[in-house]
């Protein structure tokens, strides 16, 4: 009845595709990539705002996995792909050594980016005002808090899985999430109160 089951089911479908891929079925691999793409792209957005860079990174990763498919053992497909993408991004950032226009490595040896929130918002004129506010609030979070929030709420992973992926301990994940939620709340609560008010008026 709990989360494990949903993950198990989804994972089963993905594993099936993966096994077909391993047997050389490139179409199954494309399907697998299709199912994973949105998650991977959105995850990479936590590291950089350069969309073309992300697309190329995911292409490289997919091709690499396809070529090495015989030697790769996968248990949890999504987590495997997320981890592989994370490693690849880290490697590329280090290699570019800060020359990448959007990226640099912060004091703690971690990647941070200083994209402007304004450009992000301009790209998203279609979103309504509230969504823009929340997106702004999320964009303003320190990178690692943002990553943790993504994994927790967009992906629905538990703290243990997040800790494993981010290579920190569980307490650090809890701390990251706590700090993130505290600052998000300042932005989101006034909005959701307003929303509730609107709903109440309509009803």
């Amino acid at each position: 009845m709990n989360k494990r089951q949903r993950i198990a089911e989804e994972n089963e479908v993905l594993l099936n595709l993966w096994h077909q891929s391993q047997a050389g079925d490139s179409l199954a691999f494309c399907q697998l990539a299709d199912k994973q793409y949105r998650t991977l792209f959105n995850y990479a957005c936590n590291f950089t705002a350069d969309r073309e860079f992300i697309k190329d990174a995911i292409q490289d990763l997919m091709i690499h996995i396809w070529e090495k498919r015989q030697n790769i053992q996968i248990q949890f497909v999504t987590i495997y792909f997320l981890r592989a993408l994370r490693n690849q991004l880290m490697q590329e950032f280090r290699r570019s050594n800060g020359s990448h226009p959007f990226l640099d490595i912060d004091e703690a040896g971690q990647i941070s980016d200083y994209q402007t929130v304004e450009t992000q918002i301009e790209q998203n004129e279609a979103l309504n005002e509230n969504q823009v506010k929340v997106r702004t609030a999320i964009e303003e979070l320190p990178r690692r808090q943002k990553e943790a929030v993504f994994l927790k709420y967009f992906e629905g992973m538990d703290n243990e899985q997040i800790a494993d992926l981010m290579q920190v301990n569980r307490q650090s994940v809890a701390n990251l999430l706590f700090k993130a939620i505290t600052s998000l709340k300042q932005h989101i609560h006034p909005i959701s109160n307003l929303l509730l008010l609107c709903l109440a008026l309509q009803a």
Partner: protein
Amino acid sequence: MLHYRNFLPEELAADPSFRRWVLYNDPADEAVWTEWLEHHPDKQDLVNRAKNFLAMTEAAFDQISDEEVANEIYRLSHSIGENRAKKSSIWLHFRPNWYHMAASVLILMFAGWWYNKQTLSQQQSDQYKVILSQIKEPLIEAVNNSDEAKLVTLEDGSSVLLQPASRITYPRRFEGRKREVFLKGEAFFEVAKNPDKPFYVYAHTLATKVLGTSFKVSAFDDQEVKVVVKTGKVSVFPMTKEAIASQHADDKLGGMVLTPNQQITFAPNELRLTRSLIPDPKLLELPIQRQSFEFKGTPITEVFAALEKSYGVKIVFDAEVMQNCYLTASLSDEPLFEKINLICKTIGAQYEQLDASIIINSKGC
């Protein structure tokens, strides 16, 4: 369940069962939460906050469009040497870099599956029979031998514009948890919305599942099967036993999901599904696929004329009495009778159906 009482909205938003309910519309979890709310009515606010929180993080983190994903998968399919794809489909002659120049004209995507040819065909025709045999209601068959489109209205109010040389088989009433119809040839569907009763079209070797939307299926013998979406979302999957079972198991849209202005083609002799964007929406074959039902202070005569033309029905009304009736409305994928109903409500008229005509009764505006 009791411990949820002390949850904060963000804790609820991370709860697996809550997420299955809100994000995946899981029926079992929905029941759990509906009951929980009945016992804890004071927690409605908490649930609303958690739902808002989820909706906002979903929107805030989602940064890529379906088209971009399709492009990237297409690029990948080329890179990993999907050479067989090139032979069969004209879409696939384009080079991976080509889309940069032509993104506004034509974006396409390629993916699909190969199956063992013989077993698949066999399985599919078997599957067809199995589904047919499970329907206990009397089946009605509508055939269009004329050279104009023919409107068929189903029991649930859905419209089917059956094209020439086509046949549709459907139950007199949709009993049970699904609405299922069988198509040979070509038809444009406007499905009445009912998320509890998904709508399936079985055509030749493909099954299409929808929750409420408009789309076209073409499945003439010996030709490729094609599904084109005008509004909403549908999923398409080959008619194998496994695929059908997993689609029936839940209300989610699995299979290959199609969104507006995308199409899927399935070449039976190659047993492969290809998903692509419609090259130019203006080139859609059926008038109704091009038709937009946006009216802004439009005289009612013109409104009815547009409906007559799109659906091939006759609308009878007193043009003199209704000369001062104007309509401002944005209609899209509602079935014909829902459109008529909405229009009549707006202008304070009644309608009745008589054979192939629709009679509008109005005292003027």
